[in-house]
């Protein structure tokens, strides 16, 4: 099974840089964005993105807004919310809005990787189902014609 394709979104550049290095060391393909807007732009040019790790508290467009936008445009891409304790309510709200899960900062690398893997697996199984459904549809149409 190939390693998941992940996007890391946070306004803290230092955090992103180190985390990116650590994720890449664990053979994940990592894309980074330093703001919500940046992230949405980058998603549009990377359609094979599987999981987004999204910080809730960001200046400008905050995590929740990005999540809502993502679910509207790319409902199949899984989102993991990353939060400080003060914004746990928004994380819960995020879960309600369709986030895959949330993690509290600072988080254990192993835990993060595990969550990402789960999210990616979910995404892949969904993709598979969709593919299968599509195939069936095509086959059915052929069978009919």
């Amino acid at each position: 099974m190939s390693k998941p394709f992940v996007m890391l979104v946070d306004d803290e550049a230092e955090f992103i840089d180190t985390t990116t290095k650590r994720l890449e060391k664990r053979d994940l393909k990592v894309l980074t964005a330093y703001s919500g807007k940046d992230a949405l732009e980058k998603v549009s040019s990377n359609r094979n993105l599987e999981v987004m790790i999204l910080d809730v508290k960001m200046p400008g467009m905050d995590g929740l807004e990005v999540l809502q936008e993502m679910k509207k445009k790319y409902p199949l891409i899984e989102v993991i919310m990353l939060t400080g304790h003060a914004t746990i309510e928004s994380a819960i709200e995020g879960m309600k809005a369709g986030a895959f899960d949330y993690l509290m900062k600072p988080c254990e690398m192993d835990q993060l990787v595990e969550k990402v893997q789960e999210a990616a697996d979910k995404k892949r199984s969904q993709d598979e189902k969709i593919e299968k459904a599509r195939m069936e549809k095509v086959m059915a149409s052929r069978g009919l014609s």
Partner: protein
Amino acid sequence: MTERTEHLKEDSAGQAAPPIRKMSSEGQQTGRAYYGQLRRNIIITMITVSFTPMLLVIAILLFQFSTSYHEKTYAHLEEMVQKHKQNIDTFLSEKLANIRFLVASTNIETLTDKSFLQAKLQQLQEEYGDVFVDMGVVDETGKQLSYAGPYELHNVRYLEADWFKRAINRDFFISDVFMGLRGSPHFIITVRRQYEPSVFILRATIDFRAFNTLVENLRVGETGHAFILNKEGRFQTRPAVEEARWQNSYDYFVDRMEDSKRSVEIIERPDGSGAEHLYAIAELKGGDWLLIFKQETGDAFEDISRVFRISGIIFLLGGSGIVMTVIALTRRMVRRIMKADKEKEKLNQQMIEAGKLASVGELAAGIAHEINNPVAIMVEEAGWIEDLLEEEEFAESENLSEFQRALRQIGTQGRRCKEITHKLLSFARKTDTTVKDVQLNDLIREIVDLSAQMARYNKVTITTEFQPDLPYVTLSPAEMQQVMLNLINNAIDAMGNSGGTIHIATKLSRLEKDHIVITVEDNGPGIPESNLSRIFDPFFTTKPVGKGTGLGLSICYGIVQKNGGNIDVHSTVGKGTRFRVWIPFQKPGNPGKQKYKPTRSQT
């Protein structure tokens, strides 16, 4: 008054906004002046309001009373004088009729017979007492032809006498009172009879004293008496001694009566002595005489002045009663207002204190959050180094294990930081009053964990004893956290530096149906009996100034009551204190209750 209190409220609110803690003596003085003014205003308003209608009513009533009493007195006087006037007129006309009858029924020869006159006089005296003194027959030359009576007046000549000059020209005549030959006051009645060719007059003397009794009997009150004046203003009856001297002043009545058309005239004017008198005057004897009734005004209207005096006394007594009551009431009221203001000020202070605490809390939350991010980065960096150390080139480094240990330490300490900041954040959050289903055991455990640090500083051990599987309660977790935190902090504070044990237990209550009871028990110094009853009062604190707000337990009380629960306290000095909090759980019908009922019956 409402306006004043409104103003007061604004004022104190205005004072409260700036730092009221530093209320200088100057400020207190202006405050005192303000309350003084407030008191004065209230007193003035209340007195004005209560006295104005009272005065008006008294004035109107007294005026009405005095007017009607005057009218009554006047009417009474008029009636009385009228009656006496008739009496006297009747008296005179009766006497005259006697003489006229005598003259008409007897011829002149018989009349001049002295023995006949004597007999007639005796007859009249028997009939009327001593009214008739004597009788005589006088011819037109004024010579008394015959006489019957006690004086030696036979053959006396009256030609020059004043009465004779007038009597000879009239059929009958009643004279004024005069001294005459006998030297004592009397008046006479004459009847003229013509016996051709000459004219005779029968004269009869009326005893003055007998006549005098007619008016002497007319006495009212202490000073009311009557007398008779003739047209010259001379007394026809015996006057009071002093009145004889002021005879001139009675001319006024003669003039007045001549102008008047009424039969009885009532006048108020001062007499010779200057004192105000009430006079009732009636004409007698066809206008020749005046019957005058005289009474001191004060005497006549004594009832009025008595009523005035009594109402004056009542007014003074009642008025001073009102004034004293008003002053006492106002004092009490202003004192209450002062007290209320002070309490409000205190409350305001506490509000500011609470506000400060809240902002400190928010600040702490902000700081905690800001620290969280750098700590996260640090932990990440350490993790990254750890990752790198796994590469082969470092595997042989002699300090590898040391590096790894240091990095693990960084990770551990980072996690510790995280824990601290998370706890800080969870308590700095605004008190959320949204109601949720809460498992009390979990909630309390959380609080105990949080308080453990502080407890350790104070050498306090916290032990817990939770009954498992307690039913869920419906309340605001943030509020319940506050209650528990307050109770635990109170216990820790109570034990001071000496340390001790706090035991926290939860279980289903045996005393209260459908309640969970939480017990917080310490083995501190305990609370004296005298403080125990006030312990839930707001602002009651035994802590030094600035250390406690005195709000903690009252807030607990408020929250517990609000959630339908109860709180109580037991304390033994030297042994410790136990707080118990009862919280109701789901009402019957809810699965929670049914689920836990069997558990309850077992306990």
